[in-house]
């Protein structure tokens, strides 16, 4: 692996991808494919489908790198938003919906991942867990049912027997609260 690429910023990697440098995409993949696959697998029952989503997300980045705007957020959150959207599209098709009922929680480990990032992940996870504590149980559940369960706010409202308008509002207020909390840790920037 090219040493410069390993330490390149997101924006610099995207410049590389824009210049059709496959090694730049490979570095993006090395950094983020694990999270992309983990999110896709949490939403989709089929391993094959989840891997297809990973493939689509990275091919799209290759073909349309200009869609990522560094000023708007990190490359990681961009890729995860893409992944979430694509997985949800599949999930809301009828066949996938049936399979979802049989889905269970999965966790596995990763091997090839550098230490610097591994330690960062741990600290981030710890701070995110701490930040989640500012949410009420309701708010936490609502965010998780939507984000990891792939449910619409209307579905969540039915599941929790709460008015849809309340759920919709709590999704927004919960994300806002969480962000405010994470701002104090430096994990997100104003």
């Amino acid at each position, binding site marked *: 692996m090219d040493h410069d690429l390993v330490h390149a910023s997101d924006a610099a990697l995207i410049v590389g991808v824009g210049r059709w440098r496959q090694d730049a995409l490979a570095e993006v993949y090395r950094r983020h494919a694990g999270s992309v696959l983990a999110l896709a697998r949490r939403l989709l029952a089929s391993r094959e489908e989840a891997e297809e989503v990973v493939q689509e997300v990275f091919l799209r980045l290759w073909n349309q790198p200009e869609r990522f705007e560094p*000023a708007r957020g990190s490359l990681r959150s961009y890729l995860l938003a893409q992944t979430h959207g694509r997985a949800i599209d599949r999930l809301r098709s009828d066949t996938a919906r049936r399979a979802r009922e049989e889905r269970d929680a999965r966790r596995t480990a*990763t091997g090839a991942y550098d230490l610097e990032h591994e330690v960062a992940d741990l600290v981030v996870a710890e701070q995110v867990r701490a930040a989640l504590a500012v949410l009420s149980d309701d708010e936490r559940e609502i965010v998780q049912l939507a984000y990891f369960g792939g449910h619409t706010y209307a579905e969540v409202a039915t599941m929790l027997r709460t008015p849809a308008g309340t759920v919709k509002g709590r999704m927004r207020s919960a994300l806002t609260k969480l*962000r405010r909390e994470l701002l104090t840790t430096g994990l997100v920037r104003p």
Partner: protein
Amino acid sequence: MNPRLGHHEIEELLGAYALDAVDADEALTLENHLRGCPRCRAEVAAHRETAALLVEDRLEPPPELWDRVTAGMEEVPPPIDLAQFARAERRPSRATPWWLAAAAAVAVVLGAGSFVVQQQRHDQLQAALHSQEVAVEVLAAFNDPGARLATLRSGDGQVHVRAVLLRDGTGYVLADRLPDLSGGRVYQLWAMVDGAPRSAGVLGAEPAMARFHASNATTALAISIEPVGGAEQPTLPVLLTGLLEA
């Protein structure tokens, strides 16, 4: 859904939209609005950044998946506007949280040397020292030239846990890859000394990054699952084992 929603109603939907939790009609309405409203666009981006932080696990992609990505790359992609990125490139990197960059800087100061220091501003360094002491310690430990490293693996090779033991007997284990336990069980760490396991501490039911102490004569580390409170001897089979580098 009425496409002529008021701005307040649009705003109320932004959280749900960012989580892909709106129906197709609402999504269309939102997208039309977002094209013309930078303020709502920024809010959605912020919500997505926040949501992405909730993804804390990683799955190792199967090796052939990258081949499938490259197989789809045969066509030459269309040229893009590079000027936009050339400008963006000069912005500070968001890839690494500032405190981690600062932590890496500390690791360099401590004699580690293998991290690229992206930002070394003094105030950041001070803040990192204050709030990220453990991360700094761990990074420094793994980069200590006298450190002995170990990778503990599960029998099926699926789970890897990294550990380091310093000359003074201080060790660190990055145990977050282990699945959470329930039902009154915890992970326990063992140091193998003269062929016999000695407890190096209980890692808990939801292990993360832990500091431990073990004898210099330790040859290997192991992790087992035990009842809350830990055990005197590891329950067999031991879940993960790894040799310490000589």
